[in-house]
Structure formats: C-alpha cells, structure tokens
C-alpha cells in the first residue's frame, strides 16, 4: 500500500541530492580551476506489483554524481607573477599534499621563502612538484618554473579531494607527463556555466515539488481507504 509513498520519497531525495550538487557548483562559481559536477539520475529497482504477478513496477529514482562535466573555465589575465594557467584541457600541476602526490588545475600559487630557495606552494601550503618530483623553485618572474605537467587517460575518473585537489585513481589511470607549459600571469576561472546551473536548479526544484505532491496524494489515498469504515 505504501509503495507510492516510498517512490515519492525516493524521487524527492534524488531531486534534493541533485540540488545539492547544483548548489555546490554555484557556490564555487568564483573558485579558481573548479571543475563542476553533474547530477545523473537513474531509475531504481523494478519488482513485481504483487506476488505471483508478471507486472513489474519501478521504485523511484536515484541520483549519482558525474564528474564528466568536462567544461574547463576560461582563462583570464591577472598580471600576477605567481599565477599560472593551462591553455589545454586535461593538464594538471602536481603538488605534495602531506606526502601523497595530488593534482590540481588551480595555478594560484604563493612563495615559501626558505634557506634553500623560494619554493612555490599552493594556497593550502602544499609544495608544487616539478617533472623530477622535486619541489619547484621560483627564480624570478622572467623564468617559467620547471613545473611537472600531467594529463590523464580518463580525466573524469579522478578522485576529488578538498581544496581543488585530485588523486589519480584506477579509473583515471596514472598521471602521464605532458609537454605543455602553463602561461604565467593567467588564472583559470571555474568551469561553472551559470545559466545551465540556474536551469538545473529550477528543474530539480520542480522535480522536488512534484515528488512531494506524490507523497501527499499517496497519503490521501491511504486516508480514503482508512476511512472506508466510517
């Protein structure tokens, strides 16, 4: 009897999860190098409407996260010496995130002045790594630092960490060295398309409302049946 209630609830939850993803994209509209994610709906399990029947009925919708919103943001000139951006898609800087090698498209770096030299670090203080796996030294605005530049077989399969960092995973494949050099004095904007996100938000909001309506109707049906014996 209550199957309809649960279908409505599953649909509403899926819409809510999709809204969360959209909201996250919108919140990061100004985050340098941010890659947006997409909500991907799919239908859930089908089962018999009652025992012994061949008739199948669904049980609502679920939502998954797709990393495949492969829209890299535009690059813009900042003029700041420690800003770097790639003009190609699927290119990453390597950083030393507390002992593990992580990858980022955010080229908004800072200097860490130490006795051995001026090292480039990310906003979180992680050292930027060169092609040899050593920390990258900054030798003045005229010389492009010896960055390690990497690409991935399947960029969408990267595992996402906080702070715009990614880890190579089995799905993305190991990092492969790339020849391209970043441009100094430029940064990459977030790849968030505001129009698209606002449209998605409206779609998911209406979806949520309709599914809550289904819950309400299912509840009213149950009430009708309950009041049969008046």
């Amino acid at each position: 009897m209550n199957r309809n209630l649960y279908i409505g609830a599953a649909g509403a939850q899926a819409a809510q999860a999709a809204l969360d993803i959209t909201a996250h994209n919108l919140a990061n509209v100004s985050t340098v190098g941010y890659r947006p994610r997409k909500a991907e709906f799919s239908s859930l399990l089908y089962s018999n409407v009652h025992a012994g029947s061949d008739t199948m009925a669904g049980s609502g919708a679920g939502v998954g996260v797709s990393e495949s919103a492969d829209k890299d943001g535009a690059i813009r000139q900042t003029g700041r010496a420690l800003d770097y951006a790639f003009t190609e898609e699927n290119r990453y800087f390597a950083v030393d995130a507390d002992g593990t090698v992580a990858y980022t498209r955010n080229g908004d770096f800072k200097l860490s002045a130490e006795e051995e030299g001026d090292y480039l670090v990310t906003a979180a203080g992680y050292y930027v790594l060169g092609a040899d796996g050593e920390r990258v030294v900054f030798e003045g605005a005229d010389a492009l630092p010896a960055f390690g530049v990497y690409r991935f077989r399947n960029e969408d399969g990267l595992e996402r960490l906080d702070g715009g960092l990614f880890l190579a995973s089995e799905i993305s494949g190991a990092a492969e060295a790339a020849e391209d050099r970043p441009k100094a004095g430029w940064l990459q904007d977030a790849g968030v398309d505001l129009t698209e996100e606002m449209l998605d938000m409206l779609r998911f909001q209406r979806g949520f409302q309709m599914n809550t309506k289904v819950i309400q109707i299912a509840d009213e049906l149950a009430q009708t049946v309950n009041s049969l014996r008046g």
Partner: protein
Amino acid sequence: MTGFYKLASGLITQNRRLTAVSNNIANANTPGYKKESISAATFGNLLVQRTGSEPMVIGQTSLMTVADGLDVHMTQGILEQTGQNLHFAIGGEGFFGVQTPQGLRFTRSGSFTLDEEGYLTLPGAGRILGTGGEPLRPGTDEIEVTGQGVILAAGYPVGQLAVYQVEPDSLVPAGNGVYTAGGAQLMMNPDVRWQTLELSNVSAVEEMTAALSIQRQLQSVAQALRIYDGVQSKSNEIGKL
C-alpha cells in the same frame, strides 16, 4: 457479495496505477527514461445465467479488475546537447546493448562513463557492446565519434556502438535504465548522436493530471463501497426479529 470484491479490486488497481505514475514523476529527470503505465483488465469472467425452469445466459460479468501489465511508452524524448564526450543518444528507434551479469540488456540511456579497465559503461548496469558483440574499450575519454557511432580513440577506431531493434511488446524494465527484451536484431543504419543525451519522455502535466484523476477515481470507488456496505447492512436488518 460480488460487489465487495469488484470494488475492492478497483481500489487496488487504482493504487497500482498510481505506482506507475509516481515512478514516472520520480524519473522525470532520468536520461533515456520512458513513461510507463499500468494497464488494467477484468479478470475471471463469469457467465450470468437466469435460473429456473428455462435457464438462459443473460450476459457476462467479471469479479474484479487487476493490474494486467506494465506498458512502456517508446516515444522519442528531447535530445539535449551536453558537449560531453561520453554522452550518446539514439534518434528514432533502437537500443544500446548492455552486458550485465544477467545477460544482454537494452537501454536508451547514453549517459556512459569509463570503468577501471577503460570499458565504456552504463553506471550500475554494465559494459556497452559494440557491433562485434564485444564490450567497447576506448580506454580514454578523449574520443571522437563519427556518424553511426564509430568511436575513435587517439585516431584509432575502437569499434562501433551496437544499436539493436527489439520486439516493442517484449520490453520489461529492469531498473538502472535497462530493459529486457526479445527478438533483438542489430540495426543497419542507426542514428547515433554524440555528446547528446535523450531526456525522459515524461510530461509533468500529464502525470500530475493522471495522479489527480486516480485519486478521485479511488475516492469514487471508496464511496461506492460505502454505499454497498450500507445496502448490505439494510438487508441484514430485514431478517431481524
């Protein structure tokens, strides 16, 4: 007393119809999802006979209506260009083939990803088949697709997406966007669109209208049931001493 069962089966059938409508609404944003509906049919037809010295047949009646089958409405959904390399859609007829642990399944949802071995995959369902009957393995998401679904990775052909034609009446949804179906045959000239997704063909207005109409019908049946009960209780009073 047959009226009780008729009316009760009406209640149950309306409820089952709402199940399909709810599922349509929940999947209004699911790519490749096709509208479903429950068809109702009468069940257990009986001959009604006049008894007495000259028995004769006066008609047929049935004891109840039941949810008879789930119909899948195979109309085309809107094709939305997403610009993403692993998104595919089919214009017109046809299904992508999915290799699942349970065997060959079919889908209209072209929202694919790559699995850890580099195979083209429908998440939660299985690997996507090429025309040779083997799963396609592009290995990278930097692919090019030429007309009719031939996939090139780094310039080399990986294979061609298989598009099957199936018996439309044999389609049974199996969740995660896949169907079982019989009579599958490879299509010769499929219209495969790259970087495109087919949206669901669910119309929100239609489904909400259907939900409301089901609600009212169920209320009417409930009312009839109450009246019937009233009549029965009157006839119970006749014999009272």
